[in-house]
Each structure stands twice: as C-alpha cells, then as structure tokens.
C-alpha cells in the first residue's frame, strides 16, 4: 500500500517548493498525497501538473466536492432518545479528539473541490484540494486542460452549486432543468420532494 511513498513524497514537496505562494498545506495519509491549494493558483498549478514531465498527469481521474457544513458533528438519520443532548442531535460533537484536521477553518471555507490526478507514464497519483467559501464558491475551470473536467464540473455545479468560471457549458448534468437547489449540500434534506418539471424541449 505504501510502495508509492518514495517518489510521491518528493512530488508533494516539489509542488510546494515550486508554488509556495499558492500551496496552503500538504499531507500524506495511507500513502496518498494531498496538496491544499489556494484557488487563485489552481489553473497555473494544473498547467504545470499536466505539462511538466516530473508530474506528467495526463489523467484527471475524478473531480468532486466536499461540503464541510456539518463536519465533525454526528450526523444521524434520527435523533437518539436514549441520550438527550443540550445540542440538536446533528450538532453533537464527535467524541474522538484525534480526528483529522482539515488545514483550513470550516467556518471560513465551507467547500473543498477535490481533484484526483493520475499519470499513466509515471504511474503516480496526486490529490489536489481547493477550499472555497460559502459566499463565493467559484474557481477556474480545467476544461481547457482535461476534457473529463467538462462533465465532472457540471456534476459539481449540479450537486454542490460550485461555479466553474470559464466552463463552456455549465448546465446541470444529473438533475433536471428547473430543479431548485443543490442536493448534495449538507443543508439539503435527503427526503425533500420537488415537483418534476417536464422536459424543456
């Protein structure tokens, strides 16, 4: 599992050394490398990741988003009657004090857009995370570099409401036109119902 640690560690450090002004934090967990990036530097860093032979990330394997609105609090489908709590059930702090630290504050940065890169020639992977605030969840589109970003970004817009500036066709991908809200946000109730709007065409 950890056999990729050797080259990947230098990879992470190399990115930090090349872009000290953009990189917020780096860490490795279970042999997987993660770099936290300011959104201003995303496009510049992504260009280097693709073209620099040291990185040679020809695949954008996945692009997704995480909503940290309720992170660190127990999320349960129903309140527990056995242990009454002064807080609402979904605000009960997680008992584990050694929980993973995110690197930026959840209050200031509600979302993380997560990129998974893979290099077929060098067979290594890197995870890039870009924290975004709830007030302005927008960042640059990577569609000019990887075609796979097109639908991934449409999906992230659809389900999380993250805006990708420069995307040629930022429409909903999975939900229908006329759907209200972004269903994978943590404040969207799982059982909320909406009227089904007929096809536009």
């Amino acid at each position: 599992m950890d056999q990729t640690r050797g080259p990947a560690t230098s990879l992470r450090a190399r990115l930090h050394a090349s872009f000290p002004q953009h990189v917020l934090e780096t860490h490795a967990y279970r042999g997987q490398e993660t770099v936290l990036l300011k959104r201003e530097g995303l496009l510049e860093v992504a260009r280097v990741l693709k073209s620099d032979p040291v990185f040679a990330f020809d695949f954008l394997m996945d692009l997704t988003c995480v909503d940290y609105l309720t992170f660190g609090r127990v999320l349960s489908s129903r309140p527990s009657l056995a242990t009454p709590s002064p807080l609402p059930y979904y605000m009960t702090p997680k008992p584990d004090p050694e929980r993973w630290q995110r690197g930026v504050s959840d209050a200031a940065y509600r979302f993380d857009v997560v990129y998974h890169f893979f290099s077929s020639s060098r067979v290594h992977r890197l995870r890039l995370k870009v924290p975004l605030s709830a007030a302005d969840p927008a960042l640059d589109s990577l569609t000019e570099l990887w075609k796979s970003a097109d639908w991934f970004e449409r999906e992230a817009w659809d389900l999380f409401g993250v805006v990708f500036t420069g995307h040629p066709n930022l429409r909903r991908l999975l939900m229908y036109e006329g759907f209200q809200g972004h269903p994978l946000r943590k404040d969207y109730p799982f059982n909320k119902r909406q009227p089904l709007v007929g096809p536009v065409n």
Partner: protein
Amino acid sequence: MPESATLSAPSATETRHMFLNIGPSHPAMHGIVQLIVELDGERVVKTDVEIGYLHRGFEKMSELGPYNNVIPYADRLNYVSPLINNFGYCLAVERLLGIEATERCQFIRVIMSELSRITDHLTCVGASAMELGAFTVFLYMIKAREWLWELVEAVTGARLTVSYGRVGGVKADLPGHFAARTRKALEDVRKVLLECDALLTRNRIFMDRMQGTGIISKEQAISYGITGPFLRGSGVALDVRKANPYFVYDRLAFDVPTGEHGDNYDRYLVRMEEMEQSMRLVEQALDRLPGGPINIDF
C-alpha cells in the same frame, strides 16, 4: 452550419441539419438516457446527452447511515457485475481503516471479480451484437452469463443484489464443489465464446458495422479520463490491476490486450480477449486458493 455540410450539397439546394430526439422512452434507450442528436443526412454532427434518468441519489442516501450500510448501494451501481463495486467500496474503507483482508478473502475476491468481469463483457458484446441484428449471439452469450450467475448465486445467495463484500472480508465462504463447478462452467463458456467468435469476428456485416466507427484516439481517450477495456481498445496498455495492483493481482499471471484503431471493432476484440484472461485468472486463483479465515478480526 458547418462548412462540410454546405460543400457536400449542390449549390442550389438549401440544406439544414435535422434534430432528432432519441429517448428516454425509446426501445434502444430503455428509459435511462436521452440523446438529442443533430443530423446532417444520416451523419451525426452533434449529440447532447441527458444522463440523469438513472441517477438515484445513492450518494445522498449513503450520508444517512454508518459505512457498512453503503455496501448494498454499491451493488446497484452496476447491475451486471455488482461484486466488483462491492469489493471496490470495501477496499476503500479497508484502506482508510488501515486493515488488510485475509489471504483467502483476497483470492475469493479475485475469483468473484473476474467471474463478474466475464458476465459484464458477455452482456456488453452480446447486446452490441444484438443491436446489429445478430440476435443469436445475444442469446448464446446470455446463456453463458446465466451459468456464471448460477455460480454467483451459489456463493452469495443472490444473482444481482449480492451484497457479498464486507469490510475486512466477505459474507460467506465458497460452497462445496465450487472449484469443480467453476471449472466446468468456464469450459462451457469457452465453447460459447468460440461459437460467438466464429459468428462475429470474421463476419462481413459485423466488421463493416464495427470497423472505423466510434473511433476514439489515444489522446482523446486519456483526456476524457476513460479507463478499462474502452481505454485499452484505443491502444493504451493501462490496467489498474497491473499499474496499482490490489487484492492478489500482482501474484497472478495475465495479459493486457490492447487495440490499435480505437474503433468499435477493437473494443470488441479487447473484450473477447479479456474474458479469456479473466478465465485464466480464475483458474490460477482456484489452483492456489489458500485455507484460513475469510474475515479478519479487529
């Protein structure tokens, strides 16, 4: 209007592109996808794809329960080879927990994954042959898939909604005579594949419909992030079982077939060869299946 459309038409004739709505209620779309196609005569110029009809919000439902409750949802992501999704999810959780399944479990996972891969490829090749009118091939391949699903049923208790993977193991051990039954089933599947190979591979109609259609170049395939047999059909020898081996794939011998042209025909050939390679993997894993527990204690 694109330049090619005006050039190919006589100058006095006005040509216009036609829009055709295919699906979601269409015999070939099965209610799950809609294509809004822009046509220049019979040539497709542009397609707008609406894929949301099969989106059932599993990821939202997965937020509600503990992580073990996600396993049945993982089944339903691909209803032809649910075992692979099962194991993929379990593997992800195991990595996060920092645990590794037992050796016997890893071999069982390889066997069941590869059987599922064969059923998946049988469905894909059979269905695409059916859409070209070769209904015989479809019936032969579905018959072969049935033999493999009978094996899956004997192991997991279900044909499709298996929920067989567990974090740190599998639900149950292999039943009695499983190795002998599997070898017999693979022998029968090989015969079916030979028959279908004779019916399709050098068939003039099949070749004309498959060769040179649906071409995706190496560069395009990589840029679109395509993986699996689709990518290998475009000539990229990338297989995650070789590149980042999991389970015990690094201890078993198998080849990675690739295509040359990236067209439908090459993808068909890659899938046919991958079925043979999967059978090789199953046979090796059955030969070397170790004893011991199928679940870890932690």
